């Protein structure tokens, strides 16, 4: 069962997304800010990270940069979740090292397809 690390500060979003992902058969680990996200990524070794961009303590871009820089976590695909769907945000997310990005509000089938695409690239765990 693939493990997804969900880094999201908003409680409702976290709740919704984690439950719906779990229903789809994913194991979900959660972090509430960027710093916790980086820590959990290292300790939990998830198969994929869903990273909200606007986070307290450390924002999503910085967290992604750190994860991509560290050797243990660099291979974990990151999907950026952003509330702003402007092209500038897309570029910014990709710049930080995200493998893909999705806009809020979350369209679950769309997100799932992106998750599966990125997980499909992984070597068998």
């Amino acid at each position, binding site marked *: 069962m693939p493990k997804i690390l969900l880094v999201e500060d*908003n409680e*409702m*979003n976290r709740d*919704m*997304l984690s*439950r*719906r992902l779990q*229903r789809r058969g994913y194991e979900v680990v959660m972090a509430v800010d960027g710093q916790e996200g980086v820590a959990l990524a290292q300790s939990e070794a998830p198969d994929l990270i869903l990273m909200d961009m*606007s986070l307290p303590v450390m924002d999503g871009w910085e967290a992604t940069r750190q994860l*991509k820089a560290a050797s243990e976590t*660099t*291979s974990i695909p990151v999907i950026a979740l952003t*509330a*702003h*769907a*402007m*092209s*500038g945000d897309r*570029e910014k997310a990709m*710049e930080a*090292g995200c*493998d893909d990005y999705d806009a*809020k*509000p*979350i369209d*679950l*089938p769309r997100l*799932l*397809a992106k998750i*599966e*695409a990125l*997980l*499909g*690239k*992984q*070597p*068998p765990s």
Partner: protein
Amino acid sequence: MKTGAARVLEQGAWVALFALAYFGAGIIGNIFYFEPERVATFWPASGIFLAGLLLSRFRLWPVLVLAAIVAHVAFDTLVSHKAVATSLFFTSADVVEACTGAFLLRHFLSMSGTLSQLKEILNLAVVAGVCSTALGAAVGAAAVVTVFPKAAYWSVWQVWWFADALGVLVVAPAILTWAGVTRRWIQTMSTRQMFEVSALFVAMLVVAQLVFGAASAPARSVFDFPYLVFLFLLWAALRFDPPIVATASLALTVLLIWNADQGRGPFIIPGRSVHEHVLALQAFLAVTPLSALILSAVVTARRRAERLLAEYNQRLEQQVAERTRELSQTLDHLAHATREAQDARAAAEEADRAKSQFLANMSHELRTPLNAIIGYSEMLQEEAEDLGQDDFTPDLQKINAAGKHLLALLNDILDLSKIEAGKMDLYLETFDLANMLRDVETTVQLLVEKNANTLVVHQHDNLGAMRADLTKVRQNLFNLLSNACKFTQRGTITLEVTREAVDGLEWVTFRVSDTGIGMTPEQMAKLFQPFAQADASTTRQYGGTGLGLAITKHFCQMMGGDITVESELGKGSTFNIKLPAQVNDHRAQPAPSAPPDSEALPAGVGAVLVIDDDPTVRELLQRSLTKEGIRVVSAAGGEEGLRLARELRPSAITLDVMMPGMDGWAVLTALKADADLADIPVIMLTIVDDKNLAYALGASDYLTKPVDRDRLVAILQKYRGEDPSRLVLVVEDDAAAREILQHTLEKEGWTVTAAENGRVALQRVAEQRPALILLDLMMPEMDGFQFAEALREREDWRSIPIVVVTAKDLTAEDHLRLNGYVEKILQKGAHSREALLAEIGDLVASCVARKAR
């Protein structure tokens, strides 16, 4: 104002004084005459006469003349015992002289009564002192000759002349200068000055007496220096005002003449005739005081000039001080105003920032709860399904729909707010039109089917690339298409895209027409205004926000284009969006970067290193990038490229993969191994037949062999919804692999057709359009790349998703490394050259811009 009587009295007194003075002068003059003709050597009366006339008004002159005559005749008869007739004759000479002199001076030389200027002194000397006296002397001499026939006319004339001249030159100035004296002048005379004046006079008179009273030769005394007195006059002239000088001259003259008359003085030289004595004396007397007077006048003038200068200076300084004060006041005001302006600007900037912040926050704040509504309602639907509680579903769907509608409204309102606040920016990028249209088509499909409509897309072949704000173009198209869908039932919606050149500029036109309900002219008029949907009831009936077209129009205009509409009620509507193929906007981001203005940065900053063995590519890239303002350095091979990269540290590197010697991958490895160069973004350029780069095809996905079942299933899930036919085409030359795939797919409920190479695969596609293609790259006859290209050429096949299956020699690690290191993998063959170069340009520009920050 004096009364008439008082005036008459005053004038009478003046005349009386004059007459008296005249009489007195006559007595004095009489003392200094020489025998036998008894002509005076010094006649002060002329001076008095002249001065009197000059000091009086014209009207008084006759009275004065009369008084003079009376005085003179009285004197002559009483003192000199002359006959009245003789006296009258003599007097007439004086009258002529004085009147002529005074008249000339007053009338033609406009002399005032006082000798205040040098000019006046000179005029007096010449006109009155010389000319009028000469005239008077002529008359006088005639009188003398008449009375004393033995007298020599010319000598008499000369003596008379000189005597009168002396009288004028010595006496008149004395009177006139004192007449000009004001009370203030007397007051400003300090005690010290008075003492000095007294000292002067005493000394002068003593010395003068010594000189002039010296016995005549041969009993010469030591003091035979008549010119010594000049020193005193000089002293007086330099130190004091003209009245003092004139008085000194007068005193000297009197002294000299008195002594001479006694037979004393330097001019009495034995052996000389009396005449000669008198002449010498008179000459001396004429010149010396005159010189002194002139000097005095000059000095006075200078003093006055100095005083005026000082006054002017002071006034000037005052003015300057005043101006300076005014100026500094103005400066203060200016400084104050500037500060206020700065404050205002800071406040405005702050407000502006607050506005931006507000919009951003609102965006976030408003969307967050909406996300919750939409998300939870969806989730509950799923859970209700699981629990078999289907009757909850419709209500939950309503909540979901309402939430989505609210979100749409929100997005539109925020867009409009941004536009109106001037905060809507353009993000320009170059994109392939065909790709974008395919995207939009797919997105809109559901909406099309909702009202049982059909969508037809016509597009020019080779639409090529467009440089615009992709998001906005998509939004515009989606808006028009969704409107068309909403207002059309069981009809046709047509999207037509054309590209044409007008006046050297290229324009792209998107034309959306429908066979829907159409609009009336009144409705069309209000169309692009926010919140003015064609009809208030249309919102309720057809949904929508009423803002979409207003926003679309703004977006079009921002990009330099426009939107127009044609419609017929009951028949349908057509919307035309016309946009420039190359949108320019100075507000667009990211701006193509100019190299940063810092000399501290290394030479390569802002430059791009192009590594490619093909000289054409190098040249093309050079040209297109330079146009963007980016400096280009090129290398023909890997080693040269690495060397240049180390030297220049460029902001970005484009790297050809297929190169002889050291190929692109090797260069890439080397670049990433070097700590200095690892950070430089690399854009890899590849040609079509590079087997390791699945994404170069524009493939939707890829799998590695041997295929992992779960991965495959996941991918299949993804494409499950798209085409109901559930037909998958497997293109794979290896029979065993083909079978495995087939088996797996069928188990998942898919129908499978197979092909062992590209050519056969094309046939299969023609037979029946599959929903998905699994494609191996390495095949005989027609390999995967060629097949994909061929597929792309057919319009209706372009949208079939392709999952590429590659051999496992490219490890996942490689891919990830690539993902991290390589910006993008671009395919040289599939896009038009311009599009490719433009995309490279964009990428490079953004790399360079990033590096520069």
